[in-house]
Structure formats: C-alpha cells, structure tokens
C-alpha cells in the first residue's frame, strides 16, 4: 500500500501556502499589551506606542509582502486593544469622563453616527452628571423620553423636594440604588460593571445609563427595532392548517411556539453563539420529555462555535451538523411554529436563531424530511396517500432519468415493442446519443429553475415554466431531443418539487446527475451500485446521535407515523430514537366517548 500512498501524495501535491505573519506578530505581542492595558485601566492611551512597536517588529521580521494589515498597523493595534477591553472583562471606571472616552473609542465615535452618547444631569439636589448610551434606530425614542429622560431630569427634583434634602433615613443605599429603584419606570432594568456587558446590551437595542461617581451602569430595556410581522408560510404552505410562519424577531418566534404548547415544562434557553458577533439562539425543549443528553449535546455544540459570521440558520446548520460530507441534511429547517411545536412534543429540540424566520429541529430522520404537517391535519387515508405520492416523487426525481439512460442505452429489451419502435422512430433525426440528450435537458431545466429564482419580481416563476415548455417543444421540433425525453424531464421535475424539504430536494437534484453518470457507464448495474452505496451512506449517518434511517434501520419500535400516517388515535408513543423521558403520549384508549354511555359526561378525562 505504500506505493499507493506515494502515488496519492504525488497526485494530491499542494504547494504550501505562505503563512501570514503580521497578524500573528500582533497576537504574540498581545499578552504583554493586555497586562499594560489592564494596569492602565483603559487601553486607549498607550495606543501610539504599541502601534509603533508592532509595526517595527513586523517589518523587521518579514521583508516580503506589503499587506493592508501592515499598512494600517496602527488601526490593527487599536482594534486589538478594544478587543482586549471587551474580552478581558475590563471593569467600568468611577469617572464618568473616563467611561465616556472608553465607550467612544469602542463605538468609534465620532465617526460612527449610529451611537449616541447623551449627557444629562439628574435633577437631584445637587445635580449629578450622567450619560445615556444607545444606538439610534434600534431603540424606542418614546420609551427613552418618557421612561428615562423625563423622570431623571424633571421628575427626580419633585420627589427630592417633597422628601427633603439629604439621604438620612432613606431606604436607598445610595444615589445609584435610588435611581434604579425609584426613578426609572422601566420594566426591565439590569446593572453591570463591565464594558463588555454595556456594549452587548447597547448593540441589542437597550440603553445604558452611567452615573458619575459610580463604576456601574444601568441597562434599560428600550428595544425598538423594526421587524416584519407574523406572515403566512412562504416555503411550507399547507392547505388546511395554521397559516402562521416564523418571523425575524426571535422573541416573537419563541412566543409563537409557546402559544401552541401552553405547558410550564416548555423551556426556552438562550445561548450566545459565536465570539466576535454574538448571536442569540433559543433552544426550546420540553423539560419533562426531551432527553437531557440530547439537550446537553445541542447546547454543547452551540456554545462551542467560534465563528465570524453565523447569523443565519443555514450557516448555523452547517456549523452543528454531524457530517458535512453526506448528501442529506441532518437538521430539519422549518418556518412553521406548529411543526416545531409538534416535534418538541415528540421529545426533540428546537433551535431558533435570532433574526431568522427559519427554526431548526434536531434530531431529524429521513422520514421527517419526507413529511409535511398537513399529513396529520387531513384524515389518515389521505395523509398516507400524500406520503406515498411524495415517496414516488422522490424516486422519480432521483432515478427516472438514470433509468431512461440505462434502458435506452443498454436494456432495450425492457421496452414494449410498440414503445420501442415509437421511440426509435421519433429519434431518427436526433444527432446526439441519449445520454447527451438527457444531460442537455436536465441541465437546461436546472438553468431555468435557477434563473426563475434569481429573476426579480413575481413574474419569475411563470416565466420559468413558460420557458421550460417552449424549450421542450422547440427542442423537439429542432430535432435536438426526442419527445419522450420531455416527459421524462417533466416528471423528474415534478418529482423533485414534491419533496417537501428544500435542502433534501436540492441534494436529490444533485445526486440525480451522479445516477445518470452511473447509468451511462454501466446501465442498470451502475444504478444498482450507486443505490447500494447511497443507501449505505444514509444508514450510517447520524443526526445528533439518532440514526438517520431510524426506526427502519436500525430496527426500532415503530409508531404509526413514520412511513405512512396512522390514525390520530393510534399515535400513542413518541419516537424511540430520541429516547424521550415519557414514552407514551396518549393512553391506549384515546376516544373515551366510545366507552361511555350516552347522556353521561365522560369519565375523569380532561
């Protein structure tokens, strides 16, 4: 095997990438700087000196290259010192002026016009200087005016006069305590003594009040940013069922779920994800159902993400999924609160990402990806039928073009004679082999679909469909493809649209080309080999510890809701693979009215 390894080394030889050293030099300098920074109380003052030192070192060590980091090394140093203030949990100063200077530096005031540092004086006797820090646009100005500025500046004096001067006999410890307890009619007030917390809250839409002489800040709830209201689902529409979808506001999203599950055991935990730009993630689960190991694993993965930009559910999904190389999604993304709620009630865990109208549900199985909430909302025979149609669509989307290529190219004896002669006759003038025809049509369909999404305006989808029709007819008339292929491509496209999960559908669309390739090489044998490997990959896949093909593989206890949809009163157990704390979800007899006599109230049931 060693020669193979050598061969591979030669084949996969890669020129080593030059390491960038400017930044690393900065990092090496960091410990010493951090110490001095902390000792100085503020990182800002010694900035020029540090920048100069860093710059000299870099240029001394590395002659080659001239990077932006080198050019603006002064700014790099300043950014690093800000980073230290935030990461190092530097405490607030007693002096209001010092605090104002540091905050201005952190927020890049005066260049940054979003941040407002409002000086005010609290109307006590004697007046005390204070500073209100907030970001314009994401705060509610009315709340600030009426619930912060007015009481502090105007009303505080009234109270003072009535009470009389001095603190003797006061219930308040000091002025800071008094401001918090009596002067701020604000529903959520917190206090902190670090710059980091101040910055985080201000970025989150709160206002920070700093008072001269105190090394603490009051964080006031003034969030007032703009968001979309709750709308109808765009991706997962149903005919019969709730028409609410998540929106970009995480608090509204959690409330949408809580509105469905009115149970004190529903727990919403918030986790900050990422380091440089922390993102709020809500982890929702039933404390009396969800397996604590599962919850712990979800929280472990979320809290151990160190990334620059994961502000989107799709990015987050890629950060927490088990196996990035596998073709199938391992996290269920949905925009429907009812779907999240139903899954949470099965003992799964919902992850809501701040600023995103899509929530994630883990663990997920193959069967979940093929289900839609409506299966449960219509009566069971029709729910089951819809699922069967969907599985047929899955197989058509994945395998039909490949079978066409294999049968036409290798196994013509499969085709009924009449059809064979019709196909033969209709492609007499087509100059390409079938495989080329199939690739032309499949690729142009993908092109139409992609263009249809990117085209601006609602006319896009209509245009796409019309384009496909014209392309098909025109291609046949021009003798580029045979007419039967249009049907194959159309059925394939319909099949792929029938797959309810978007990312699963995309993966099937891509795999289709692999199967076409295999079919062109080896006929049905190739499809068989490909399917064998594909199935092998899927059964070895795990999503947050649950086998992807469970409960079919490995064989587990099956409910009446994994392949077909059973009757509503048969849904007695929660899925085995999530190992919920309570297995049974409804008693063996759910319809007790069958067993109570007419004219009497039912038994002790709710």
């Amino acid at each position, binding site marked *: 095997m060693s020669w193979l390894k050598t061969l591979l080394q030669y084949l996969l030889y890669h020129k080593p990438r030059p390491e960038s050293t400017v930044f690393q030099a900065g990092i090496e300098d960091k410990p010493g700087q951090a110490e001095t920074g902390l000792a100085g109380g503020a990182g800002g003052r010694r900035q020029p000196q540090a920048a100069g030192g860093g710059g000299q070192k870099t240029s001394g060590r590395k002659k080659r290259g001239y990077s932006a980091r080198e050019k603006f090394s002064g700014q790099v140093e300043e950014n690093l010192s800000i980073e230290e203030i935030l990461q190092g949990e530097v405490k607030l100063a007693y002096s209001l002026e010092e605090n104002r200077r540091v905050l201005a530096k952190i927020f890049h005031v005066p260049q940054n016009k979003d941040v407002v540092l409002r000086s005010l004086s609290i109307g006590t006797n004697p007046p005390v200087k204070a500073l209100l820090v907030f970001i314009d646009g994401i705060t509610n100005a009315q709340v600030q005016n009426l619930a912060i500025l007015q009481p502090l500046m105007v009303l505080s004096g009234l109270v003072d006069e009535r009470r009389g001067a001095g603190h003797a006999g006061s219930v308040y410890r000091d002025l800071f305590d008094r401001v918090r307890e009596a002067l701020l009619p604000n529903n959520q007030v917190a206090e902190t003594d670090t710059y980091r917390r101040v910055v985080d809250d201000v970025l989150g839409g709160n206002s920070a009040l700093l008072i001269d002489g105190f090394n603490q800040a009051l964080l006031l709830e003034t969030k007032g940013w703009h968001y979309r209201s709750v709308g109808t689902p765009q991706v997962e529409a149903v005919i019969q069922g709730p028409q609410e979808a998540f929106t970009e506001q995480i608090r509204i999203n959690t409330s949408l779920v809580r509105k469905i599950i009115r149970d004190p055991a529903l727990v919403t935990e918030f986790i900050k994800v990422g380091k440089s730009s922390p993102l709020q993630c809500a982890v929702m689960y039933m404390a009396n159902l969800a397996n604590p190991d599962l919850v712990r694993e979800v929280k472990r993965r979320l809290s151990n993400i160190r990334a620059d930009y994961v502000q989107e559910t799709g990015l987050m999904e890629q950060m927490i999924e088990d196996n990035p190389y596998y073709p199938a999604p391992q996290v269920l993304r949905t925009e429907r609160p009812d779907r999240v709620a139903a899954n949470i009630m099965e003992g799964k865990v919902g992850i809501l990402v701040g600023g995103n109208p899509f929530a994630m549900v883990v663990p997920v199985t193959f069967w979940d990806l093929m289900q839609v909430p409506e299966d449960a909302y219509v009566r069971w025979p029709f729910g089951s039928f819809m699922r069967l149609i969907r599985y047929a669509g899955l197989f058509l989307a994945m395998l039909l073009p490949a079978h066409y290529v294999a049968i036409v190219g290798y196994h013509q004896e499969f085709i009924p004679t009449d059809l064979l002669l019709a196909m033969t006759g209709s492609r007499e003038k087509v100059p390409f082999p079938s495989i080329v025809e199939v690739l032309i049509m499949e690729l142009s369909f993908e092109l139409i679909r992609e263009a249809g999404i990117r085209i601006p305006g609602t006319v896009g989808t209509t245009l796409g469909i019309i384009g496909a029709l014209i392309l098909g007819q025109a291609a046949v008339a021009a*003798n580029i493809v045979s007419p039967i292929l249009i049907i194959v491509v159309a059925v394939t496209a319909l099949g792929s649209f029938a797959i309810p999960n978007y990312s699963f559908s995309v993966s099937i669309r891509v795999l289709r080309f692999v199967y076409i390739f295999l079919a062109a090489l080896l006929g049905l044998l190739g499809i068989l080999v490909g399917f064998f490997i594909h199935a092998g990959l899927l059964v070895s896949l795990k999503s947050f510890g649950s086998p992807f093909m469970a409960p079919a593989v490995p064989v587990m206890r099956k409910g009446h809701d994994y392949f077909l949809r059973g009757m509503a009163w048969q849904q007695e157990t929660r899925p085995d693979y999530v190992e919920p704390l309570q297995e049974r979800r409804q008693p063996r007899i759910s319809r007790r009215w069958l067993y109570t006599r007419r004219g009497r109230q039912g038994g002790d049931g709710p």
Partner: protein
Amino acid sequence: MRRVLGVLALLLLVMLPAGCYDYSEPDEKAWVMAMGLDRGRQNVLTVTAVIAVPKNIAGSGGGQPAAGGGGKNFFTVSLEAPTLLSSLELLNAVVDRRADLSHIKWFVFSRELAEQGIGEYLAPISRFYQFRRTSLMLVCQGRAEDFLARGLPVLEDNAGKYYELMHRGWRYTEFIPFDTFHQFYYKSSAPGVVPVAMLASLERKEPVYPDNAPKPKGKYEAGRIPRQGGSSIEVMGAAVFRQERMVGTLNADETGLVKLINGTLRRTLLDVRDPKHPDKFVIMEVKPRQRPSVKVQIAGGHPSIEVDIKMEGGIISIQSGEEYEKPGNIPFLEDAVEKELLEDFHAAVAKSQELGADFFGFGLYAKKLFRTWPEWEAYNWDEKYPMASVTLHVDFKVRRIGLIHETLPQK
C-alpha cells in the same frame, strides 16, 4: 477533504474501464420482428428476417406521425445461410443497422422443413441471449419467406404488434394453441408429452370444399379456411411434432381439446347439431368448469387413462326456435353438447394414438406413478401410449340461456 477527493478520483478510475461498453442507441439497431426458416436453395437454409421500419410506424422528428402509406412498415430479407444465427451476421451485410433479436415475436418454419426435423435449429437459438422464450413457434404451409413477405398487417402499423395479436386469440378461441417457444422447447425435450405449434398459412385462393353441405367450423384449419378478403395470412389449428419432426396437423376442434386438457382453454363457441332438427345448429358458449381430472393406471403392461371433464356454458342462439331454455328441455341440450364433445374427443384421441404422439400430455399424469426418472424413461411412454385405453367422461351444464328466456313460435 483531499482524501475524499482522492477516493472519488480512484472510484472514477474504477468506473471508466467499463466505459459504456455495449451502449447502443435504439436507432442504431434493426429490430427483427420475425424470422422464417425454409429449406435453402443455394445453401442449407433460407432465413427470412422481418425488420421493422420505425420511422414509418412512429413518424420521425417533431412528434408528428408519418403520413400513412408513405412506405412499408417492415421489409423482409431472405438470406441463404448454413445456420439460423449465421444469418444474423450476414444481415449486417445488407442492413445498415445492427440486427437485434431481442424483440422477436415469431419463428416460422415451413412445413417442408418441419417435416424434415427442426431439432438442430431449436437448441441453438434457446441458448442465445437475445432470444426470448416468449416468442412463438409457427409452422406455415408453403414457404416461410413468402408467408412473411406477404403477411402484411391491415389494422396495425407495427408488424410486431400484429404478430402478437394474431396469437392473442388463444384467449377467446379454441383454435389457436397457447404454447410459446418455452412450452414447445420443454415439451419437445421431456418424455410423456409432445409439443404442438401454431399452424399458419397464406390465404388459399382456390375453393376448399366442393359443395355447401353443413360443416362445423371446427373442422377447418389454416390453409383450408374458405374465405374471401382479410389479411393474407391466417392461423388456425396446430402442427404436431414427434421427435422434433412434424407428423401431422390438428384442426380447430382438436386444438381446442388439447388446450382443454392442458388447462389453457378459456372459452369457445361450439356449433352443436340440434338434437331435434339435425340440419340446424345450436350455438353454445362453452368454458371449463374445473381443471380436467386425468387419472392414469398402469395394469397389465398398458396404461388405462380416465379423463373427467367438467364444462359449463350458455346458449348463444337456437336456430330452430325450439324451446330449449325451458327447464325440462335443458338436459336435451346438455346431452347434445356432451355427445358432440365426446365424439370430437374420441376422434382426437384416436388421431393421437394413430400418430403415436401424446399431444394431450397424458404422460405427464402417468409420470407420478414412477419413483425415479430412469424408471420413467425406461417405461418408454411414447411406445406404450398408442395401446392405452382412454375413457372419457364429459359433464356439461347450461348456466345461462341468453337474453331471451322464452321462445315464441315464429309466425
């Protein structure tokens, strides 16, 4: 990631040697719908291939069907060849596309060749992978090359469909045997039964019978059907083979009885002589009520066979206007049908014993009396069968009397 890519590249390399070997487009092949074998004129055999012309069947390009009558839907090529499959190779000299047998429907042997023996042609084609055992064996009166060249379908565009539908008649008539090549092949190689093949012929131009005396339709066979018009080929009856050589023909009735014993008869119409008016016919629909029971005993060296046939059916028409649908009269009709069937049966059994060919397959029922295969082979059924005594019981019941439940006398 690099390792994954490496593995993928290696997998790709593994796939590539397979490299589309055997890939071929359907329009690069010539689809042979039927083959005919005659005694050769310049070589051992004259092999005729019927090759479909797809563009005349489906129309070409644009999805529009071809304007009718633009060209023939098939053409035939007759080649002088030493063997059947060597002609497949020779075909490529005269046909641009590669000839392919995988959609073949008919193998037609001329009667002349069949009487000489067809064993040496059967075994080779059953080994060949393109060959389908669902195709049919035919024996045609006259030369097969003429038969195939002139056998133009009237209703169909596609000769293959025409050939298939001509055989489809086995489902609703008595005179087309069911046996495909598969049945033919195993029956010709197993002791205890002999195969029959479909009997076919080109239309006979000169009259078959000299007068118009009443003759039941069951006495016809291919090549002896008095008719005018229709497509130029006809199938009816069967050719009986013994030791891979054709030894005789069966007419329509006899073919029906063979199918009855084999269990492949679904229904048929029977012209029964009216029991009270001998010059008139009663038309009966007849179908088997149960599978026939055949019991074979071997006593004193020769087999005695007891056949019990249970049939049922309905009245289609009563020519004479006799009130046979009355409950009291129904037994007359039943007796008449039983008598008719018995007569036919006795004649057919006599014929089979005379030919020494057990085309009913009674031997298959006798086989179970022997413990081992060598014992059974040593018994030599084919020699014993002509001496066998055959007892027949036919039971017929009228189930339906048609849409008229009372016959009024005609004024």
